């Protein structure tokens, strides 16, 4: 999903991520961890990437990967703004600490084009194979949801 980099959209992103993970039957505590991390990454993009400029967009992509030992959510949060190093204040320090604390890995890449935060969630149990399939793949929309089966990485089948 692509949303404008504005503070108010974070709650919309959280709702969509929650719906998508719930449709994949993500365990409750781990679901909340992913939502927290995505929220911080989006807040980071809103606060810093576009500070002093016209707001651009933030793109949030969410998919799951299936491994032999379980499943993970892979989230990327991409903005087109200019990366600014986290200020040495309590606010941003907590945001990065939360992201690192609730996800298995957090990578932040930035260049002239923008900033990409890629996060890998903790491993959660697989669903039965009839539901999930064996190979790594992007999850589609929740069962029975409108929007077709080929919406790729978008939460809730967004386009």
């Amino acid at each position: 999903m692509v949303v404008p980099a504005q503070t108010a959209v974070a709650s919309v992103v959280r709702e969509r991520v929650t719906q998508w993970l719930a449709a994949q039957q993500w365990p409750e505590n781990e679901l909340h961890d992913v939502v927290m991390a995505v929220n911080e990454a989006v807040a980071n993009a809103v606060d810093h990437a576009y500070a002093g400029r016209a707001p651009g967009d933030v793109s949030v992509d969410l998919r799951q990967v299936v491994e032999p030992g379980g499943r993970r959510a892979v989230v990327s949060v991409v903005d087109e703004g200019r990366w600014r190093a986290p200020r040495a204040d309590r606010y941003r320090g907590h945001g990065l600490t939360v992201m690192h604390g609730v996800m298995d890995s957090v990578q932040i890449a930035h260049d002239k084009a923008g900033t990409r935060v890629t996060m890998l969630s903790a491993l959660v149990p697989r669903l039965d194979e009839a539901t999930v399939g064996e190979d790594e793949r992007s999850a589609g929309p929740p069962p029975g949801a409108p929007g077709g089966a080929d919406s790729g990485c978008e939460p809730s089948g967004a386009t």
Partner: protein
Amino acid sequence: MSESVDSEPTHEQLMVLRRRDDARCILIDVRGEIDAMTAPRLRETLLTALDEADGRAVILDLAGIELLASAGLAAIVEAQEVSESSQVSLRVVVDDTNAAVRPLQVTGLAASLRLYHDVADALRD
């Protein structure tokens, strides 16, 4: 207890704040989501309560929240620092499963706050 309803209903769907005063404490009950949008309102309410405590404890009840983001953590840390310098007792209510515990633990802030399991527990102290 008398009850004063929050004066800024704009984002009430996201976060509801209620402040109740009595002779022993000021209780701030938070429901919903504390994020970058709503945290400034929590900060303002906390700092006002600390300023008006006048010997009473200030109890922040987070047992009903669904999200505590870094902006909310910053507001709580600031309130904690103000409470120490002004010698007001700030007590934070969480429960074992709620959305507050996780961010407080992963940031290490749980160790520096006075945490309680319920309001009655916080009042007994």
